[in-house]
């Protein structure tokens, strides 16, 4: 696992080298100042040791010149570190336009992944080498943190919102995945592996699970069974509810005069807390689906709704204007309110139970105590930052 430099972990992502570079610079600065201070201390305590218990050294008041020097020079060095660190963070926070999307749900105490092609994994994520991977992450319970030391990257996974993280692996291998934010009893068991594969191996691996339902398909099915189509219509053209086709990335005018940009978190919030942001021209008639859909199902719904905006996936601005010519009739559809069958769907296609569940007896009980795994989106989420990792 070791490089030729001791105590440096495997470096297997495009940013790893840059993070190490800053680390070496800082280590150099630290060693320089530590040696400087230690050398002066040792020199002084030997040279000026007390020779006579009655001696009174000549007082020295201080020196403005020296004070300015050791204020300004450390400040300049600190600023060099600040700029370097901020530039580096910019690379890490900015989400790439083109990336392999993977959906991540953290849960006490496991990591659940779903690929766009439908494969699901627990505590192990297979990705191809040399391709940017973008994670869209949330959690069913408490805060977790997705940490891959070999990639030198990390992001907290916060309930009630989507967090994003991207990386590009540079060499095949099996790399440790840790939960870095303390999350309860089996926190230290919430680990896994990122398996980085050659593209051909990855394609083979993907084809192994080809019969699984993709998140878009699953989302479409949910869209029907939950009755979303009643108001938003089958292909999302809208009706009693606002149009969903071509929505993503567009500016949306709300009935309180605000304008927001439609993104993942906005769609998620509109499902769990429909009254939070109502599109201008529509009434507050949508029932909440909070508690009826799991985080994974929410991600599938969001993915499906995103797929209705093809321009977004091509990285271009949306072209089709949203249909806003549907005055409200003022009645909620009874179908929409009555349909609640998500539990039937909530089977876990992956099959194996959490590998860690056996270790802490509290795992299952805590899970079942939690009646309400889905929370509303954070109202403070700032639309402009949503495409980056917040």
């Amino acid at each position, binding site marked *: 696992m070791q490089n030729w430099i001791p105590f440096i972990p495997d470096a297997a992502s495009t940013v790893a080298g840059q*993070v190490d570079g800053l680390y070496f610079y*800082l280590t150099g*600065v*630290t060693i320089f*100042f530590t040696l400087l*201070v*230690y050398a002066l*201390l040792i020199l*002084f*305590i030997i040279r*000026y*040791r*007390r020779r006579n*218990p009655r001696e*009174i*050294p*000549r007082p*020295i008041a*201080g020196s403005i010149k*020296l*004070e300015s020097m050791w204020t300004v020079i450390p*400040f300049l060095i*600190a600023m060099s570190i600040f700029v*370097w*660190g*901020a530039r*580096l*963070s*910019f*690379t890490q*926070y900015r989400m790439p336009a083109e990336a392999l999307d993977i959906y991540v749900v953290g849960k006490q105490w496991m990591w659940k992944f779903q690929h766009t092609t439908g494969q699901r994994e627990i505590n192990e994520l297979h990705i191809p080498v040399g391709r940017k991977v973008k994670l869209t992450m949330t959690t069913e*319970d408490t805060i977790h*943190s997705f*940490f891959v*030391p*070999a990639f030198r*990257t*990390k992001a*907290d996974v*916060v*309930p*009630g*919102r989507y967090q994003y993280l991207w990386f590009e692996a540079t060499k095949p291998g099996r790399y*440790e995945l840790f*939960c*870095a934010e*303390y999350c*309860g009893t089996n*926190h*230290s*068991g919430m*680990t896994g592996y990122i398996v980085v594969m050659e593209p051909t191996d990855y394609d083979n691996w993907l084809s192994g699970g080809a019969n699984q339902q993709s998140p878009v398909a699953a989302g479409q099915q949910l869209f029907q069974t939950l009755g979303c189509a009643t108001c938003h219509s089958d292909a999302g053209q809208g009706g009693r509810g606002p149009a969903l086709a071509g929505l993503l990335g567009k500016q949306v005018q709300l009935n309180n005069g605000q304008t927001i940009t439609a993104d993942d978190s906005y769609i998620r919030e509109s499902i769990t807390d429909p009254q939070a942001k109502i599109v201008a021209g529509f009434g507050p008639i949508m029932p909440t689906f909070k508690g009826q859909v799991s985080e994974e199902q929410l991600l599938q719904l969001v993915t499906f709704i995103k797929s209705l905006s093809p321009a977004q996936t091509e990285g271009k601005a949306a072209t089709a204007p949203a249909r806003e010519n549907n005055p409200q009739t003022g009645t909620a559809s009874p179908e929409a309110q009555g349909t609640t069958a998500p539990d039937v769907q909530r089977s876990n296609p992956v099959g194996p139970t959490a590998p860690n569940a056996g*270790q*802490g007896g*509290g795992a299952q009980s805590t899970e079942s105590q939690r009646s309400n795994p889905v*929370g509303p*989106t*954070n109202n403070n989420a*700032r639309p402009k930052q949503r495409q980056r990792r*917040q």
Partner: protein
Amino acid sequence: MQVLESEEFETPVASRVNYLNATYGLKSWLLTKDHKRIALLYLGSVSFFFFLGSIYAMMIRLELLTPRGDLVQSQTYNKLFTHHGILMVFFFLIPSIPTVLGNFLVPLMIGAKDLAFPRLNLLSWYIYMVGGILTFWALLNGGVDTGWTFYVPFSTTFSNTYVVAAGLGIFINGFSSILTGLNFIVTIHTMRAPGMTWFRLPLFIWAHYATSLIMILGTPVIAITVLLVALERLARIGIFDPALGGDPILFQHLFWFYSHPAVYIMVLPGMGVVSELIANFSRKNIFGYSFVAFSSIAIAVFGFLVWGHHMFVSGQSMYAGMIFSFLSFAVAIPSAVKVFNWTATLYQGSISYDTPMLYGLGFIGLFVIGGMTGLFLAAIGLDIHVHDTYFVVAHFHYIMVGGTVLAYLGGLHMWWPKISGRMYPEGWARFAALVIFVGFNLTFFPQFLLGYMGMPRRYHAYPADLPVWQVLHVMSSAGASILGMGLTLPLIYLVWSMRYGRKAPANPWALPGLEWRTPSPPPTENFAVTPVVTWEAYEFAPPEELKVIGKFEPGDEADHPAVTKG
């Protein structure tokens, strides 16, 4: 070695009435209004909580000897680090130097008879004890597993432990902090002896003034935060948990708005002690007095603006992160200024190798490393990797243990003759200081390496296929046992010296500070007559000119022997 034996300078102590023997009995201690006795009450209770916190630390280090979680279950381990953190932060580090050394020395150093509000001072000790005992009760009866940070929604919704009881203890304890801070500020403003101008104050006082500002302004925020956690946990009012309509990041803002300044509550008094140690044991006035004094105030002010650097990966805005990163680098500068000034103070000094000086030098050495590694964490791009790893653990232990604990021990040794009226055994004390320094570095230096390699915090087990990790953990645990033994030594010999130590003269180190111009131990009223200060801070003079103020023995001159410089 450097203790002056000159007879003409020594005040007879045997028969004299002092604060320790003025009255007897438990009641005279529990109802005392004397700041010096209250300092001793704090010394006992703070040491008790430090001892408890250390036991938890030892168990953590024992568990981490092996990669597997074999000594304790994960749930037990979670409680161990939570209890360790809560006891050490809230019941040792925050109160330690202000309530023990500050309580004892603030009035003595400024020439006052007591603090401004002696009853409030006693009340603050009782509040501290109520908070401490309540928290300790919660820890014994089931414990808490949230980590000392009480992050939501884990603490409000998921944890099945005594969160509210422990939180209530911390809430109550906060009032003790506020009262102490209030007392210090009023005392320093209004009760300085004639001639004791602001710029004649020892730097210990400046540091305590800055600390008191943070205590008063910051502590109410943690109190509110803890209350909100309790409200959400008990009444299910949605404040932090998104399932109830709350915002978990809001908690982190509130928590760190106090808890980052709290870091300065812990380290600023330590810096004040070290300024005293370095100046007095090199017999030099501090280099750049006003820079050191104002750097304390600067740290207190800027310290309130950097809390967001705990949240670089938590989901706050990238631009907020950049501002917090910038301010964190800015707050590092006053600390650097202090280090350079302490070092420059030694130049052409008369440096003694007495134990307090060893701790002072040890503090500077460890604080440089602790401070510099703080820069790693302030750089966002690098913090993303090392956040919540052992790198952070190592960094803050270098500041908290290498800084605060060393300063506390150094201060305790420097003023022990004044506090107890007895000398501690110098040989043992130097040996203990050395053991602590070596043990400390062996414990915490490997954790920097572990952290960069990716070892996350709060893990009771770690991958067994990384042998280097275990090697580093074993080194760390070995260091912890050495550190533990080193810390036991002062406990033993200081207690021993209270009965068997050589009697201390009024001014064993021949220092100019006011606290040394009254007998050891001081009388209840501190000074027989109000001292008049005509000298600058750290104005050293030959020992025979440093007369004890006031008349204690027949033959002593009572006419304010305001010492003129030599």
